[in-house]
């Protein structure tokens, strides 16, 4: 059983600085831009009921009764609210704690307000009575209440969601084509310094098991599938910095069974303008991997395969060698990844099928059951998803709020924007099914996740907060979740004709 956990490959490998860089760039929007908006006069949302001493009681009752009804609102929007949420530290979405005093906005109260406002904004943007002006006004109000850098998880999260919605509102006139990489219209705002990105990635790795979970589960399955092969060829859909592979190489170098030191070839799929979100280009990644392989004595070669400008994958462009075990590695939704359009992914996976791979490793985010909640339903699900994500980060590192804010700013914020943009663009359509379902539907066969793999995942989670869960949701699928919210799944497949 080759386990790669203990090799702290990532730290030394890229010579990342391990100190947290503190950044001073801010992305808060100020209300100075909006001279007509004079919300500043009052802190609480209550209308100037000053003259109204005796009316307060009734209004309080009304507000409280509204909050009790709030659960219904939430459930309605969530389309039956499939997943039962446990409340975590500071996000209580569906358990209401109604404060006695209206003017004392407790944390939970505020969180609930924010959720309601976000939902109202999403509704205004796309609902039956859509009104962009109303959406705009709600977003103005939200911006007043939240900041991406301060406050509770919910407040910071709401700030990003507000910004994402704002982007949708402004950009929705400009017909985004579906083939564009929807990283969010405010992509250009987030050209982060390299040091920021490096630091944020480091933090993400340290604070959460998401990245490692995806990589280790895939690698373990790969190792198990190629035990007797001399030549291994991995086609990596989105190699990014190539972090996944050093540990695999080390495992291959030190494997006991089968032919020693098999030759490893990695073909990285590259895209036209994709260099922006990753730290450095694919060539640099290749160079690093080559250097690393050389340093441990792993026979290795690195190739690139260019996608067309519209991200169509041409399987013929992949150089195959007879006798090699072909592995398709598809990491989709790790927190620091860019969003890839469904068409691009579909093109890749269907092309991959024609190559008859030995193994397909797929990591993607888990989406809750939406039913026919439409945009608002998916929006709320996305909100739940990311709030669980935020909570998981906070649980691990409750004091390092600035570090978390950095990760949020560099990775999660843009992801939220991209995620919402995608949901918005596809709002009239059938919900995209998960890729694992898609793979099953086009004929890929599931491959069981080994006991060892499952154990490895559990061990990994043990290094982090015990709010993390891993479960086998199907024979070939492990799902990582925070408390009761499923967040990321890793599944293993083989081509229909394979004899695995």
């Amino acid at each position, binding site marked *: 059983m080759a386990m790669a956990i203990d090799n702290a490959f990532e730290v030394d490998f890229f010579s990342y600085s391990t100190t947290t860089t503190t950044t001073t760039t801010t992305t808060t929007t100020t209300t100075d*831009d*909006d001279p*007509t*908006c*004079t*919300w500043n*006069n*009052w802190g609480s*949302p*209550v*209308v*100037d009921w*000053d*003259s*109204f*001493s*005796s*009316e307060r009681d*009734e*209004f309080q009752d*009304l*507000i409280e*009764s*509204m909050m009790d*009804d709030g659960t*219904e*609102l939430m459930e309605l929007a969530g389309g039956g609210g499939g997943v039962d949420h446990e409340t975590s530290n500071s996000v209580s979405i569906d358990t209401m704690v109604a404060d006695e005093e209206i003017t004392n906005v407790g944390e939970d109260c505020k969180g609930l*307000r924010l959720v*309601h*406002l976000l939902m*109202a904004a999403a509704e*205004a943007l796309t609902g039956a*009575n859509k*009104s*962009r*002006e*109303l959406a*705009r*006004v*709600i977003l*103005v*109000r939200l911006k007043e209440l939240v900041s991406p850098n301060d406050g509770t998880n919910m407040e910071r999260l709401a700030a990003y969601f507000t910004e994402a919605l704002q982007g949708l*509102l*402004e950009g929705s*006139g400009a017909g985004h084509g579906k083939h564009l990489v929807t990283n969010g219209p405010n992509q250009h705002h987030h050209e982060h310094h390299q040091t920021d990105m490096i630091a944020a990635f480091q933090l993400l790795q340290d604070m959460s098991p998401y990245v490692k979970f995806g990589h280790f589960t895939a690698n373990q399955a790969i190792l198990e599938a190629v035990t007797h092969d001399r030549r291994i060829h991995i086609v990596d859909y989105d190699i990014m910095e190539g972090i996944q592979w050093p540990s695999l190489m080390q495992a291959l170098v030190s494997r006991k069974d089968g032919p020693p030191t098999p030759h490893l070839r990695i073909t990285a799929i590259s895209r036209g303008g994709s260099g922006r979100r990753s730290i450095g280009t694919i060539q640099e990644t290749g160079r690093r991997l080559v250097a690393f392989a050389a340093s441990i004595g792993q026979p290795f070669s690195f190739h690139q395969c260019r996608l067309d400008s519209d991200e169509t994958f041409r399987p013929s462009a992949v150089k195959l060698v007879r006798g090699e075990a072909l592995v398709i590695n598809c990491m989709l939704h790790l927190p620091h990844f860019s969003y890839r359009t469904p068409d691009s992914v579909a093109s890749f996976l269907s092309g991959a099928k024609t190559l008859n791979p030995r193994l397909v490793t797929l990591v993607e985010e888990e989406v809750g059951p939406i039913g026919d909640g439409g945009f608002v339903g998916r929006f709320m699900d996305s909100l739940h998803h990311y709030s669980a994500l935020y909570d998981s980060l906070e649980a691990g590192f409750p004091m390092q709020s600035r570090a978390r804010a950095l990760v949020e700013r560099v990775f999660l914020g843009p992801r939220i924007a991209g995620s919402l943009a995608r949901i918005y663009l596809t709002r009239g359509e059938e919900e995209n099914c998960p890729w694992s379902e898609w793979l099953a539907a086009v004929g890929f066969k599931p491959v069981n996740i080994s006991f060892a793999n499952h154990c490895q995942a559990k061990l990994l989670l043990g290094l982090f907060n015990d709010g993390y869960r891993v479960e086998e949701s199907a024979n070939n699928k492990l799902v990582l979740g925070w408390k009761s919210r499923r967040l990321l799944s890793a599944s293993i497949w083989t081509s229909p004709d394979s004899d695995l």
Partner: protein
Amino acid sequence: MKLSSAKGASPSHNSFHSKRRSRHIVPPFQSPDQLEPWSSVAVDMHNNTNTNNYHHHQLQNIHTSTSLSSDYSGAGEEPCATGDKWASRLLMECARALSDKDSSKIHHLLWMLNELASPYGDCDQKLASYFLQALFCKATDSGQRCYKTLTSAAEKGNSFDSARKLILKFQEVSPWTTFGHVAANGAILEALDGETKLHIIDISNTLCTQWPTLLEALATRNDETPHLKLTVVVTANIVRSVMKEIRQRMEKFARLMGVPFEFNVISGLNHLGELTKEALGVLEDEAVAVNCIGALRRVAVQERGAVIEMFKSLGPKVVTVVEEEADLSNSQHDFVRCFEECLRFYTLYFEMLEESFAPTSNEKLMLERECSRSIVRVLACDDEQDSGGECERRERGRQWSDRLKEAFSLVRFSDDVVDDVKALLRRYRDGWKLTQPLQDETGLYLTWKEEPVVWVSAWKP
């Protein structure tokens, strides 16, 4: 001190009209506190001494509509269409939900309105705030109590000075009230021309700002100045001390003008229908004019006919009626329709205030607060419970005409009066116009941005 009469009257005018040319029509503007009852002295059209003051007072270009949508550069947004505005949308939805008794929807909308509203924000936010208050009261059946609280709070802060300042400022920036004054005065003067004993019964809410101009005209038009008795009928809101001040100033001004003058106040009435000739002190040899500004709408709907009959029983030579153009008579039976009309009217009014006053004007805020009380009154108060008058159920000019036609017949405003009104409007910002519906000829309308807002008419028995 009679001002010289104008020269060059055209042959078609009789001597009265030519003399009228010399009479100023422009209402008084605010000025430092002097002997005059309210303001600076009347300006003769030919006497330029004070025209500079007017240009001075004439309002600067106030910033235009402050709707948030003006920042938005998206295509297809029409900031002026009420239907597109978020506040009116939400408010109408809530009104419908109330009418349908859809309680979860009501809660949701009230909550959302509460989040987005502010009495200190832009027009939309203000409307949202005040109408939210009314909707909330309606939903919780607390309109009566709310109204009482608001009223008493307002009265606490009320004083002669503040009331005076408010109305003068309003008249300075907007012809909303002066329009009615000028037209009514014109009609009254024409109807009572040649009479020696005049008795004007004033049932209005403009604190006698209408009369200095008239007194001036009386003083200047004839060699023999008639005697004027002014009986002011006060409704519950105005405090006695305010009237005391007004009396002093009016009497002083009349002395200055050299007009024999008598000033009476009738207060403590429960409703107008109680008035009688005796109570008003109407004498046989007096030529009576009844001046009703914003007063008929305060009469309970079912009593309006009786009040008009009462007017008739006073034997007036002319009855002038000024009202605001909105139909809010029907709140009990069709809440949504009434709500919609109320929203329409007050949207216009608030936008007008927004464009007429400076952004941080305290007077504007006071006027808005006044509206908030009216809005609560109309939408959330049950008339049957009410015992204090002040129901504020406006009707449109056409509706009032139908009522008045029962007892009176319409008097057309003369061309001179129309010219005077037009001259008045020229002193204000763009957007104000006078329209005269030709077919039925039911009086004159003041329009703001093409919407009729104030209606004035004159009637004779």
